[in-house]
């Protein structure tokens, strides 16, 4: 089927493709032997009372690519400083007013109902230090996963982050699931791999994530 003047370059490309394919497959098999990366279970990270739970507020304006129209739709809501009680609310109880209203999108599934709320972390801890919002650190926003976007999956989850004295993320656990294991893992992986705090004492933060489609 190949014409004479075209066969040579194409055979070369095919040979390269095949070689690349074989190499990728080989690395894949080796990678598979190493076993999947696990999101640590909650229990491994419930430290003693010495590690206080702190709330995390991302730097004032996370780099959300927001159209001006969005902000303008709910100016009142955005301007209102939203209060959250100290005890951790189930994710579903997070005030929705911090976000622009969800648009009705026919193809989009409703956010999965959060699973039964996990009892508050260290609820019995005598003192909980307050976290002052700080710009010290790197908190890039995770991308919306392609598979979730394509299937119209949305969700909210709460991630518990242990931060080492160096400021590096020591461990990440999902406190409250979005109901979508893949979305939970995506957020947890992202925090573990991309976030870092300024050096200081070991700390813990609860970070709520909201994945929403518009």
């Amino acid at each position: 089927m190949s014409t004479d003047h075209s066969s040579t370059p194409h055979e070369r490309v095919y040979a390269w493709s095949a070689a690349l394919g074989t190499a990728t497959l080989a690395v894949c098999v080796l990678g598979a032997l190493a076993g999947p990366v696990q999101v640590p279970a909650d229990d491994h990270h419930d430290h003693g009372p010495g590690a206080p739970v702190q709330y995390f507020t991302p730097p004032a304006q996370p780099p959300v690519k927001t159209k001006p129209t969005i902000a303008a739709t709910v100016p009142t809501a955005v301007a209102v400083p939203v209060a959250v009680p100290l005890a951790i609310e189930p994710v579903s109880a997070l005030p929705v007013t911090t976000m622009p209203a969800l648009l009705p999108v026919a193809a989009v599934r409703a956010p999965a109902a959060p699973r039964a709320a996990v009892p508050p972390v260290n609820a019995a801890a005598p003192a909980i230090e307050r976290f002052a919002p700080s710009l010290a650190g790197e908190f890039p926003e995770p991308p919306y996963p392609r598979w979730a976007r394509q299937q119209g999956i949305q969700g909210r989850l709460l991630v518990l982050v242990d931060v080492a004295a160096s400021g590096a993320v020591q461990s990440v656990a999902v406190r409250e699931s979005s109901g979508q294991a893949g979305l939970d893992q995506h957020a947890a992986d992202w925090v573990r791999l991309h976030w870092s705090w300024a050096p200081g004492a070991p700390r813990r933060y609860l970070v709520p994530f909201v994945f929403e489609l518009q």
Partner: protein
Amino acid sequence: MPSLRPAFLLAATSLVAFAQDPAPQKMNPVVIKGATIGGVTAPAAPALQLNAAALEAQRVATLGEVLADIPGVATSYFGPNAGRPIIRGLDGDRLKIAQNGTGTLDASSASPDHAVGIDPLAIREVQVFRGPAALLYSSSILGGVVNVVDNRIPVERLPRAFVLSGRAGSADALRSAAFLAEGCAGDFAFHLDGFTKTTENLSTPIGRIADTASESRGAGFGVSRVGPSGYLGLSFSGLNSTYGVTEPGIEIGLRQRRWDLAGQANAPAAALKSVSYKLGVSDYEHTEFDGAAAGSTFTNQGWDARVDFELTKIGSLEGVVGIQSGRFDFAVTGDEAFLPTTRNANDAVFGSFIQSLATDSRLRFGFRLESAKVSAAAWTHEGLASNPAAASAAFTPASFALAWIKDLDARWATTLSLTRTERAPNFQELFADGPHVGTESYEVGDRTLGKEQGWGMELELAKTRGAVSGSVSVYYNRFASFISLQENGFGPDLSGLPIPGPNFALGGADELARYDFTSIPADFFGAEARLNIQLQDTAAAKLALEFFGDTVRASNRDTSEALPRISPGRFGTALHGLQSGWSWRIDATYHLAQNHLAVGETPTAGYTLVGAAFSRDFVLGSATTARFSLRLTNLFDVEARNAASFIKDALPLPGRGVEAGLKLSF
């Protein structure tokens, strides 16, 4: 502003609710927004996306039909098995179809009876690009660019998924089965999919149409290494398809094999957000069988590669720049050898940017410079008056687009765009000389053709938020030079009237009129509108009323004669909702009659198509869900003829049909 009130109330309520808390603590969630309906927020964002959920709801046979419900889009409908989208009256090479960002490398733009080398069963997402963002893919963007995403190369860690689906239909006796498996092992994400599909002769209101059955099989496998700094992946896919094209005894056997390589590096340098690269290598072949004997064979072997650099935001400027390069060899052998063997080279540099001008206005702009070269080998075939020598033609098309977006208030936005587009003539327009069964003509190219050049202007008004949303746009596309296949009035050798020439025998029938590829001045103008009224919107119950419509007129500016095969327009309404677990939709669309005709073209009457669709999700186990769907098409069995089809006189649209599908996810 009625819908501000609930937001305000909510805000007030939460303030009251938390007022009792003695020590309130700020806690803002990290909000990640994903766009399903596209938008103009990123320099490379599509104007429109159909995601997997939307595609499943309307699983159809060809890429043309997948998009045909969108205002402004029609399908070329060469029978139930070949259909390419036509946007705003622009088709063929004027409407680029990309597969994961690189060319499809099939033969679908050469003839309307050639299917696009991607079966809808393998498609996970369809993106339509317009304006500056479309310049990332093509220099001919007045209709837009269609990008089909098959997910075969994973770009991120994937949750474990195993999906089985089956579908059966009545109008074409459809039987299809498909599977999809995805997951992760260590840092590796993999994807595996496959499908098989058969259809019998199509049932229409005028009876069953012979030679429209089809049989297709396809599969794809991809694996990626995914890490914090990006991904690198490879995929292999194949499609085998045999389908009838309504011509007695003629069947096309299509085979495509494709390798894809893709990767992305996140933040490789301070000035770059990401660098991504893609390479597609394809081997395409289709043979047109007359009974058991192979008639003509079309081959397309080539590759297409691109590198996209996403720039870090500088001030209020965001942008993507890149390069694209592709080569393909296209050859036809056999009876229908109306083209010489050609080598086609295309290299391009492009960019698309967004500059924020104020909080309520922004400017999008883009450019694309190409270098295109077509080299034809010397050739001869039976019936050729003279044997053309080897020749080549080179072009440097340059296109740019500018769009100014102004938010009128929180809900209304208006966009004014201006586009300059140039397209290099393709191998067919330059070098064709021979009988072409698909278009029932003796096609003759013009080796002296220049670039196709046009200007486009569009004004859009959109309401993006609120219970009532929608958009209206009007456009005017003016081509100084539009390459069109025009009836010459003579037979192939120009020696007389359209009566048989010397050797134009084609299965005994030797009466083919000659058509020349000619550059003409052309005007396209039209409008599109869409209105969605959300009557009810809660998590458990939704109800919406939708109105939509489009219209387009295309004419030769010199002669005021209409251009051929233009879908004149339509308007329709749909009611859709979600109640007690069932999603449903009922729609009715009136398609206008086409009476603005090219010479020799037959008019088409107006017609109304009514359809309905239902689906429901079931939970079968802790990790098993099922979705049942039912679609009813052309409920009143109306005889409808698509004005954009080459074979509208012979073949109406499908008659009344029922299609049921079941999808199991584990």
